[in-house]
């Protein structure tokens, strides 16, 4: 399995679990969870962070050698998202951005039109754009055509822990995609993460499922195993579903 690397934006990653940092009760608990998860890439919300501040979540990532991925969480318009992405580029010296433009604060569902608009501008500006979107195969394809480096469909709304509500759509997105598909948002427990990988996603991004768990380090370990298990199952190829039994040890 050592050759099964995850390539995103031209960079190689051994871990297919991308973490978020929101929701942890303390930096120490976050640190333990990140260690247990084995993640190599972790999102940070640029609107809620001063990159120069000492002892912050960025210091935790630096000490662990985890690459920070700035996101545009909290933006409602393409204009804000582009501005926030540029702040992130300047502050963290990376042209990668997880693009997140939400439509309303109750559902936190992504606004497809603003997201597309921002993606076009950011791609033209030289960013490696990783957009958070609904589970919409048509939009995923359009964003890929617009030059995004990956697409990140949701399983369910952010923080809901509802799992993957429409596995069929995720499969359709995976089938058509020429860029990595990262299942983002909605993961509640390990089986959700495993399912995402079985459906053919290239990676999973999650935060609350770990940071708000009663034992975050333990859930992080579970997620790490689930992502690996789901990936292996996907590569191995599942057997066809049958209506009736078929003896596993034939009698002749």
């Amino acid at each position, binding site marked *: 399995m050592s050759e099964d690397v995850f390539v995103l934006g031209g960079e190689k990653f051994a871990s297919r679990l991308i973490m978020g940092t929101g929701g942890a*009760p*303390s*930096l*120490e*608990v976050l*640190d333990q969870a990140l260690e247990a998860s084995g993640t190599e890439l972790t999102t940070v919300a640029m609107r*809620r*962070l*001063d990159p*120069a*501040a*000492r*002892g*912050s*979540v960025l210091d935790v990532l630096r000490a662990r050698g985890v690459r920070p991925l700035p996101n545009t969480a909290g933006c409602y318009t393409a204009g804000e998202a582009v501005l926030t992405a540029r702040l992130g580029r300047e502050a963290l010296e990376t042209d990668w951005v997880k693009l997140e433009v939400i439509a309303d*604060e*109750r559902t936190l569902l992504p606004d497809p039109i603003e997201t597309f608009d921002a993606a076009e501008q950011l791609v033209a500006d030289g960013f490696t754009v990783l957009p958070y979107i609904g589970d919409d195969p048509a939009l995923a394809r359009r964003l890929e055509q617009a030059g995004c480096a990956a697409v990140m469909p949701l399983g369910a709304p952010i*923080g809901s822990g509802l799992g993957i509500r429409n596995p069929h759509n995720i499969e359709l997105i995976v089938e058509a995609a020429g860029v990595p598909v990262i299942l983002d948002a909605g993961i509640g427990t390990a089986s959700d993460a495993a399912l995402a990988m079985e459906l053919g996603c290239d990676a999973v991004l999650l935060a609350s499922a770990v940071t*708000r*768990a*009663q*034992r*975050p380090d333990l859930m992080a370990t579970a997620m790490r195993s689930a992502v690996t298990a789901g990936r292996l199952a996907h590569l191995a190829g599942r057997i066809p579903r049958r209506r009736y039994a078929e003896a596993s040890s034939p009698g002749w």
Partner: protein
Amino acid sequence: MVPSLEVTPEATSAADVIVVGGGVEGLSVAWRAARRGMSVAVVDPDPGSGATHAAAGMLAPVSEVTYTEEPQLRLGLASLALWPSFRDELEDDSGVGLDYRSDGTLKIAYSADDMAVLDELATFEQTLGLRVERLTGRECRKLEPMLSPSIRGGMLARDDAWVNPRLVARALLAALDRHGGTLIAERAVELTPRGVRLASGTVAAAPRVVVAAGSWSSRLLPGLPVRPVKGQILRLRGPAGFLTRCVRGLVHGSPAYLVPRGDGEITVGATVEELGFDGRVTAGGVYELLRDARELVPGLTELELAETTVGFRPGTPDNLPLIGPVDAPWPAGESREVDVLAATGHHRNGILLTPITAAAAAAFLTGDAAPEIVKFCDPGRFAK
């Protein structure tokens, strides 16, 4: 940085203890030390103006329980138990009332989703042996009629209390004065092997120094893992009795609290922002606080918005404070004339943890045994 030893400006009159930082922690440590007969000086250009000025003053270890934070809970409960006698002594010594109230915290779930979170937490609290009562929405509103009819339900933590931190600071200053403590209204620049160098260049000399400078503590003790965690907090003014208890709410997943005072002031807080020493009050911060508070208590829009404040919680990696002896920042082998003690890093719980911090620091200063629970707060615990 190595302190310069060539220039030794005349030291100010010596004391037994210099406390750097005149917030509730520093002042209470100084007061406790002065009561034990030590000569004490507090160094602070503007006492009570930091996190103490912003703090809401909830003494609420029960309703603040979080998974993974049992030591924090035990420490909070130990300090809550000390509060009534701390209050009595402080009110006696100062003649200042603290507006200490012990009617409990009412924790409200706004939506069914919020209720599920609260319910799970209540079960966790009960397994920890804490006294919490689940309430229906109507039961909550019977206790606090100003609550919105839309709230889903709640939980009463009867053992929680609250106090007005600004009155605590005022009382501590008066009590300290009464016991002969002095205030040096200057900024501390650095620790030296003889005491504390002040902004004016003089050294306040003392054999013992307590660093209780909140978020600024790591400027004096560079290795100390304290960072500022910005909080924006509002003060509304209305009729007394508008609310009678501390109300904490979970509104569509985001936490909010309202703390009523005897004079009708209601403190509404607070944002949690990792933005260093960013002292700006922002439109979004005020909006989010009022949005959530209004969901819980619709009538508050008629109250006066009397004040918007930014404070910096001194955060540590594990949310536990740093109380105890620390290595002084000058090079090893340097003559060690000063013992340095930290009493900082209280994050969200500075007011709650004031009595236990003062008791522990006073014990360290006099060589007595500190309360057993304070072992969780050893400043050296992060050294790997």
